[in-house]
């Protein structure tokens, strides 16, 4: 018997489900917007007065202009926590097994999860931009540079979503899926996000310059403020491509492994699922 498979229909069904979940999970969307905005307020108003001299040489007019790109990238990292948590909730609840016993296009489960998370993160980024404009952020970028920034952010967001999906699928509990990736959220701070890396001690400076978020931040800053980009754009795209691919391969392998080998749930699992 040949059963017809509906890839597009199933993906759009799953996407609608995931978007509904995101709209109802006010805490998650609040955190994805709230975390970068909190850091924005902290750095602009608390530390900004002291830090603004350090960025004069970076030829940016106001400190908020300098920090915003790093906090926009931080939004993508916060989105990674969102998808990791959502994926883990699905995997640890009974619903994933229900989907697996249905004659559906299975990749739709993962594809829709990535797409819904990316949409959520991009909406959050727009919200952070709006708040930043209200606080005095200004950009002299024209349409082309804004489009470039949008493209970069879309790529960053989707790659980090793929990585977050893998974290969530691989996590044993929802708590570890949501807490585990937290260091990634503060990683932009230990890079070129808050102060120029040239002000850091040698060892740290090396890390800050070569960690994946710095080239993304430098590229975004260049597009928004006209600061020099150099090869940062290429390094950023390579990081995104690499991390995204890693996340995708890892996700699919974990998803398929659980598919075939998940045994009888032990007492711990029963307690968690019943509670």
């Amino acid at each position, binding site marked *: *018997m*040949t*059963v*017809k*498979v*509906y890839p597009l*229909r*199933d993906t759009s*069904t799953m996407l609608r*489900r995931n978007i*509904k*979940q995101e709209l*109802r*999970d006010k805490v998650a969307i609040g955190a994805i917007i709230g975390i970068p905005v909190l850091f924005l307020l902290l750095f602009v108003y608390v530390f900004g007065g002291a830090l603004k001299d350090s960025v004069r040489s970076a030829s940016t007019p106001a400190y908020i202009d300098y920090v915003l790109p790093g906090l926009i990238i931080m939004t993508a990292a916060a989105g990674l926590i969102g998808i990791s948590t959502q994926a883990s909730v699905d995997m640890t*609840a*009974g*619903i994933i*097994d*229900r*989907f*697996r*016993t*249905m*004659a*559906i*296009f*299975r*990749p739709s489960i*993962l594809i829709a999860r990535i797409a819904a998370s990316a949409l959520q993160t991009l909406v959050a980024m727009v919200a952070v931009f709006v708040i930043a404009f209200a606080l005095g952020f200004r950009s002299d970028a024209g349409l082309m540079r804004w489009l470039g920034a949008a493209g970069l952010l879309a790529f960053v967001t989707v790659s980090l979503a793929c990585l977050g999906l893998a974290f969530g699928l691989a996590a044993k509990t929802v708590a570890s899926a949501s807490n585990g990736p937290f260091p990634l959220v503060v990683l932009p701070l230990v890079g070129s996000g808050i102060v120029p890396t040239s002000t850091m001690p040698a060892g740290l400076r090396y890390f800050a310059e070569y960690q994946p978020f710095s080239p993304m931040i430098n590229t975004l800053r260049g597009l928004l403020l006209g600061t020099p980009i150099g090869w940062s754009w290429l390094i950023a795209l390579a990081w995104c491509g690499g991390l995204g691919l890693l996340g995708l391969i890892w996700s*699919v392998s974990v*998803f*398929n492994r659980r*598919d*075939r*080998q*998940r*045994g*009888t*749930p032990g007492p711990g699992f*029963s307690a968690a*699922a*019943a509670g």
Partner: protein
Amino acid sequence: MIKTDGKPSGNAAAGRTGAAIEVRGLRKSFGDHVVLAGIDLSVPAGTVFALLGPNGAGKTTMVRILATLSAADAGEVAIAGHDIVRDPLAVRSVIGVTGQFSAIDAYLSAEENLLLMADLWHLPRRAGRQRSAELLELFDLAGVGPRPAFTFSGGMQRRLDLAMTLIGAPRVIFLDEPTTGLDPRGRRTMWELIRRLVRTEAVTIFLTTQYLEEADQLAGLVAVLDHGAVVAQGTAAELKRRIPGGHALLTFTSASALEAAARQFGDRASRNDEALTLQVASDDSARSVQDLLAGIDVDAVRHVALHTPDLDDVFLTLTGQTGKEQS
């Protein structure tokens, strides 16, 4: 990428027997731990089959394999004629599964959960809405409105779960411990829903339970699973016949009365002098009880207890788990 398609099955092993579920030589181990040690089962289409066993007997593993969630180490399984290994997609297109834990989307309302399932079964929009409305009504969920499912009670979640399993009208339904964790009223409601399902739709139900009464109430055929092996199979009545028959337990007011009655019954009775009781082979018909009491002084009998074998006795006899373990 993720595998979604199964090759069309060349031969349908169970097609010729007319069985909805055909299992042969099914084995599964996790490491050194043997969970299923060679299972053979056949469930005729349109019947309710109960797999009865204690916790850890391998019931859930069995359902997971039959529902294409887990791979067996050895053996063959065909569901509605489709081989689970060669054509899992065809199997999935005819089954519905309700597991031990609610497989619902907690963020969605009852209706949204049902419509999600209708979409994934690829029902036409209108048919999906209609079927969803019917099921909400039937499962007493029509009034819950738009609130998300995580606000539901355990019983409501179970009912929604079963409704979601039914929306695509699957031909073979797996119910893994459908009433575990429900209160007595919730259990009774669930039983009524399952019975109605069997009456109104031509479905085959494969049920697992650790409640002997549940298997007795719902199933035509019962298999007793213990330590990964089927230790008995048959109708509830057949299983009951396999164990020692029923008896009446008479408690007497004095040792002399016990003595007199024991003489009267001879070989039919076994006595307990300490408890002043006499156990006499008998069934529970009024005629037997009348005959039993006719020959003795009824004023010397403090009370009479009748015992007919139930699935508990079957289970305890077959699995060797007698009352000794509890005491």
